[in-house]
C-alpha cells in the first residue's frame, strides 16, 4: 500500500494519538485507553499472518467496545489470580505511514511498526509487529475505530498475553 502524502500537521496529530495510546498501554490505564476508541471501536489481534476474518477464524483478541468494558473491569477485579502480578510495558512505535486518507472527513488508515517489552509475573517478554489504526477525525484530534495488531510471531506457541499490546 502506498503512503499518502499529508501535511506535517496532520502527521503530527496522528503521531500524538499513537504515542498517547502507547503510553496508556504502558501503564496500563484501560480507563483512559478505552476513551480513545469510538463507540463502535474494535481491537483485533489475529492468530495468523494476513488473517482476513475475525469471526470464522480464531484470533488472539477480538474485542468490541462491550468486551473492552468487560475486560477493563476484569483487569482490576481483586479476585483475578492472573492479575495478582504487576504488568508494565514499554511500547516503541516507528515507521508510521498514512496509507489511506479521506480528504473530506480526515478519516485515515495508519500503519506503524511497534516493539513492546512486557513485564509480567517475573518475566519480560518481547512482542513486535505491525499496527494498523483506522482513525476518525474528532475535532482537533482523532478517535480509533479499529486497531489491528499483527504480531510477527502470531502463529507461534505463545504464553499468556495478559493485556492489549
Amino acid at each position: 500500500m502506498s503512503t499518502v502524502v499529508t501535511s506535517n500537521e496532520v502527521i503530527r496529530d496522528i503521531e500524538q494519538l499513537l504515542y498517547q495510546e502507547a503510553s496508556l498501554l504502558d501503564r496500563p490505564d484501560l480507563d483512559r485507553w478505552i476513551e480513545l476508541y469510538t463507540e463502535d471501536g474494535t481491537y483485533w489481534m489475529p492468530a495468523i499472518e494476513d488473517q482476513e476474518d475475525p469471526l470464522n477464524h480464531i484470533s488472539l483478541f477480538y474485542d468490541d467496545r462491550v468486551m473492552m468494558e468487560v475486560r477493563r473491569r476484569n483487569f482490576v477485579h481483586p479476585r483475578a489470580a492472573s492479575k495478582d502480578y504487576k504488568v508494565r510495558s514499554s511500547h516503541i512505535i516507528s515507521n508510521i505511514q498514512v496509507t489511506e486518507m479521506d480528504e473530506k472527513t480526515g478519516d485515515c488508515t495508519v500503519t506503524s511498526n511497534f516493539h513492546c517489552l512486557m513485564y509480567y509475573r517475573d518475566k519480560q517478554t518481547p512482542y513486535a509487529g505491525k499496527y494498523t489504526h483506522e482513525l476518525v477525525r474528532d475535532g482537533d484530534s482523532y478517535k480509533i475505530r479499529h486497531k489491528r495488531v499483527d504480531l510477527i510471531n502470531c502463529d507461534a506457541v505463545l504464553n499468556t498475553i495478559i493485556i492489549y499490546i
Partner: protein
Amino acid sequence: MSYSTKDIENLVQPTRYHRNVYTDPEIFDLEMERIWARSWIYIGHESQVPEPGSYMTMNYGKMPVVMVRDKNNDVHVLHNRCGHKGTKVVDTPCGKISGFRCCYHGWTYRLDGKLLGVPHLKGYEGTGFDKDDPQYSMQKLARYDSYRGFVFATMDASAPDLKTWMGGAADVMDNLCDRAPEGEVEAAGGVLRYEHDCNWKPFLENLNDAMHPMIVHRSVVDAANEYMSTLPEDSPHRDEAEILPPFGQSYEYMEDMGITGFKYGHHYNGGKTSIHADYSVDPEYEAAMIKAYGKERMQEILSFNTHNTLYYPSLTIKSAVQNIRVVRPISYNKTIIETFSFRLKGAPDSMLQRTILYSRLINSNGSMVGPDDQTVYFRIQEGLKSTASDWIEMHRNFGRDEVLDDRTVGMGTSDLDVRTQYSAWKEYMTAAGP
C-alpha cells in the same frame, strides 16, 4: 532416585497422590514411556489432511510424528525421522507433497513412508545395506486408527482397539458429530497454541473440577454481569452473555451436572445439563437438524449436554461447543495446549462462529478465562516445591460414587475425575512393558 514398581504404586493412594508426580523430571520421563507411549494419543482430525499428499506434523509424547494421507486415501501416522541419519523429514505445521524427501541427502519416501530412492546407490553395493529393508523407511507408529474422523495412535502393539479403549466415553464423540446435520465435523478456523508453565496433569485435573469455576473465574463473571446489565434491554443478542456468566454457577448447580468416569482414565462432566446447556439455538440450525434427524432425535442429540470430556491423557473435547484441546507435554513443568475448532457439516456459519467465539473467549492466550486457570497451575507447580507435605488430597465424595458395569458416576463436584485419572495413571505406570 530411581523408582521401583513398588515406589510408583505408593505414589498414588485411594484419596491422595504424591507431589513428585508433578515435580520430578524422572517421573515425567517414565510417564512418557509408560503412559504416553502405551495409551492411544490423539494425533489430529482426518479433515486436516483432506487430499492425497496432505500432511500435518505434531509431537507424539516427545517424538516428532507426521499424519499424512496417501494416494489410496489412507491416513498414516509416521515417525518424522529419515531412515538414513535421523533428520526430521518435514518441519512445517502442514502442507501438501507428492512424496517425502529428506533435506539432507535427498532420500525419498512414498506417502506411506516406504523408502523409494537413495541417491548414488552404488556406494552401498556389498555393504549389507538393503534399500528395501523396512528399517530404512519412515517408520509407522505401532498402531493408528480413527473414530469418526479423529485419529489416534499408540506405540503399544498390544493395546486394546481404539473403540474398546474409548468405552462409554465414545458417546460424547458421537454426540459431537451427531450435532452436525450431515453427521460429520471438520476442523476449521485454525489453532491456538498456548504454552502453560506447568506439568500436563494439573490441566487435565482442572477440566472437570466443578469446584473451581465460581472461584477462579469469578472476576470475568462479575465483570461481564456488571457491564452487560447496564446495556439497554433492546441491545442486540450477544453470545458472550450466554457463554461467560454460567462459569459462576452455584455449587448446587455443579453438583447436579453429575460426573461419569471410565476405565483408562476417561471421564466427562455433565450429561443431563452443563454450563453450555442454555445456549440459544439458531432457528436455521434447528431446521437443518430437524430435516436431518426428525424432531425427537434432534432433541435427544441436543439434550445430551456435557462440559469437558477427557480421553486420557491427550484429548479433551466439548461436544456442545464443538472445540477440542490437545495436550502436548514438553517437560515436567512445561505443557503446550492446542485449541482446535470444528465446523458441523450442514450447519449454518453461525455455529462455527460461536465455536470460534468460545475458543477465543475462554481458551485464547488473550482471554479472560484461560490465563486465570494457567495461573493456578503455575502456582500449584510453585507451591509443591514446599516440603510441608508430600501429599495432594482427592477426598471429595470418596466412597459415595456409584460403581456401575462400565462406569462410575457421582456428583458433579466429586473428585471422581481425579481418582479416575490416577487409577489409570497407576495402571499404566506399573504395568509390565510391551
